[in-house]
């Protein structure tokens, strides 16, 4: 239990994919303007990341790395699997859970090219995680994305009202405020290892 929490919290906070590792910056800057959109996008990301991690781990270890060495196909296979998975999830949701599809549907196609999803699956492989830790890390990354999006949409609603210098209006001031939010995540660096270590 302790390790489960540790793995999730490490992925969500100390190794936050958006603010510490810079993966998935596009949706972070683009969709964080309104809280409801930010939540919808984040839930879709959590969903797809966990599914992708659960599917790509066996594919890599049983198919690509089992017997014949096809590991160099990792990038191609993973991106295709993720694209197919997103399509599949969309079809299933549309058929069986129309309400959820209505809420998440628009965000799903965007996730295929979210580097967070591909990044998490590839990091799981290169870090040599077992199946359980891979899925937990993916869950943690998704939750970390959610956390960052929610915090940042709050920050942005305040920044919108501020009046920065002319040249900083719009994107530049958003990036500077992202830098301050990112700074706050550094405070957690030693905390988790102290508690769980």
């Amino acid at each position, binding site marked *: 239990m302790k390790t489960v929490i540790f793995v999730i919290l490490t992925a969500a906070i100390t190794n936050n994919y958006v*603010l*510490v*590792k*810079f*993966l*998935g*910056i*596009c*949706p972070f*800057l*683009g*969709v964080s*303007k*309104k809280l409801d*959109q930010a939540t919808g*996008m984040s839930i879709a990301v959590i969903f797809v990341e966990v599914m992708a991690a659960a599917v790509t781990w066996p594919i890599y270890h049983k198919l690509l790395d089992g017997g014949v060495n096809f590991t*160099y*196909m*990792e*990038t*191609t296979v993973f*991106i*295709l699997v993720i*694209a197919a998975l997103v399509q599949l999830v969309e079809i299933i949701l549309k058929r069986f859970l129309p309400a959820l599809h209505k809420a998440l549907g*628009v*965000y799903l*196609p*965007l996730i*295929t*090219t*979210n*580097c967070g999803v*591909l*990044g998490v699956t*590839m*990091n799981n492989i*290169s870090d040599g995680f077992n199946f359980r830790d891979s899925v937990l890390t993916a869950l943690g990354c998704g939750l970390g994305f959610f956390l960052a999006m929610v915090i940042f949409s709050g920050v942005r609603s305040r920044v919108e009202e501020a009046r920065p*210098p*002319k*040249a*900083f*209006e*719009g*994107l*530049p*001031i*958003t*990036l*500077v405020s*992202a*830098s*301050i939010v*990112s*700074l706050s*995540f*550094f405070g957690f660096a030693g905390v988790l290892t102290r508690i769980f270590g």
Partner: protein
Amino acid sequence: MTRMQNFLKGLVKENPTLVLVLGTCPTLAISTSVTAAFGMGLAATAVLICSNMAISALRHTIPDRVRIPCYIVLVAGFVTVVELLMEAYAYSLYESLGVYLALIVVNCIILGRAEMYANKHGVADSAIDGLGMGLGFTLAICSMATIREILGGGSWCGIPIPWFHENPIGILTMAPGGFFVFGCLIALVNKISKGKAIKKKEFGCMGCMLCSKGVCGKEETAQ
């Protein structure tokens, strides 16, 4: 538009990173050292030229409905080639780029150029466009890495710089510094172009077909 203009637009007027604001992830992550940034820029340029040429050559063959998966597969193939070459001939660079090398596959610049340019123009023009855009990306990521490495690490390409070496601002090489320097650079572009460069396409990612679905909230800002 002459070929020269076609090439130069990627470097300055439509710089993919600083004006169109595409491909932010590698720009922020790899710009801690100039050597790695230069390698990243060249790798992306190589992939961009190849993918632009291939997509342009196949533009009449690829069915319109499934074009995006087709582009992704083509790009993934070229990325794998670059990855294997780099692993064989430039291993230390391969190590320092890590997962970001493979993530060129989902880089908005490449898919964006495929969608905006390569599927409408000839092979030669697309190659020039890819070269210009790729070098524009290299220029932007290297200038950002120069600022971060000199101020944050006190060196340039690993060569120590006097005074800065004794007084580094460590935070600039870390994640918050990345966002900060990038914000300042875009503000500088805004200042120089008097707001013209970014005003119309504030988040740039508009060009990216995935965001044109109206979800991103980006075109809202742009209007």
